[in-house]
């Protein structure tokens, strides 16, 4: 199925959890914040959050800034 991750279209297996998605893209999930369809999903809810086709996920993190 296709989702939008950080503005890019991505094909992922059906029934992928948010936790699995995060694990795929970063080694340090603890510093990532996730938004699913514009709503923040807290870290403890990631494993039980199953992504649906066409959803939009944002994974963000801290970077240097002024």
């Amino acid at each position, binding site marked *: 199925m296709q989702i939008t*991750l*950080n*503005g*890019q279209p991505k094909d992922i297996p059906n029934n992928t959890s948010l936790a699995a998605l995060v694990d795929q*893209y*970063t*080694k*340090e999930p603890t*510093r*990532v*914040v996730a*938004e699913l369809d*514009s709503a*923040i999903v*807290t870290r403890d809810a990631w494993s039980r959050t199953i992504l649906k086709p066409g959803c939009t996920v*944002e*994974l*963000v*993190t*801290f*970077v*240097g*800034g*002024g």
Partner: protein
Amino acid sequence: MNTDQLEIAGQKFSSRFLLGTGKFRNKGDLKASIIACGARIVTVALRRIDLERHDENILEYIPEGVTLLTNTSGARTAVEAVRIARLAKAAGHGNWVKIEVINDSKYLLPDNEETVKATEILSAEGFIVLPYVSPDLYIARRLVKAGAAAVMPLGSFIGSNMGLRTREFIKVLIDEITLPVIVDAGIGAPSQACEAMELGAAAVLVNTAVAIADNPPMLAKAFSQAVEAGRAGFLSGLPAKRPQGEASSPLTGFLFE
């Protein structure tokens, strides 16, 4: 013990120098700079993770106990700023946010009106809000009402190193507003930071000048010293300028009279 401490939202800080963490050539320089200058508040930004490669974790380079002040850079409206602030809070590193709403890619000037709106919303949600603005008395008054914890007027354009080009208008804020005034943006030399403090600013935030210097930790420390010096200058009662000369040696007892 130093009793003249920076106080924001009821918290005290042992340094009046705030450091931005962007643009450092390497993260080792960043960490060394924070330690060298003793900053107790540093700004960070929030960005999408890079899907192609592993990002460095900026937080590893920020010493324990330093307050993270997340900016909302990238926001072009109050709504976007609010969304970034909420994400930052969800990351679990506190609720301090520097509102930065910019719709001007050339001078990077802040949109005061949107900034006020974002401040209202986020203050009401319990954030500690430090809005970055063009120095304007009416905006500052509205920020006070909106619950801002401090006001951060710009000295000049972000990253320009042009110094205190808004001198008179920052001074108005210092004199008329009860919140701490933290001069942000454009401060490119320790002397400029020092002058801001002599005017009565509560603190100064610098990023670009330090990050792109030949020796960032050395310059970070220099800024920190200059900020202390300026603060002491302000507190010690600096004398006014005079248009003529006035002898510093006695005008009596000359040998040749």
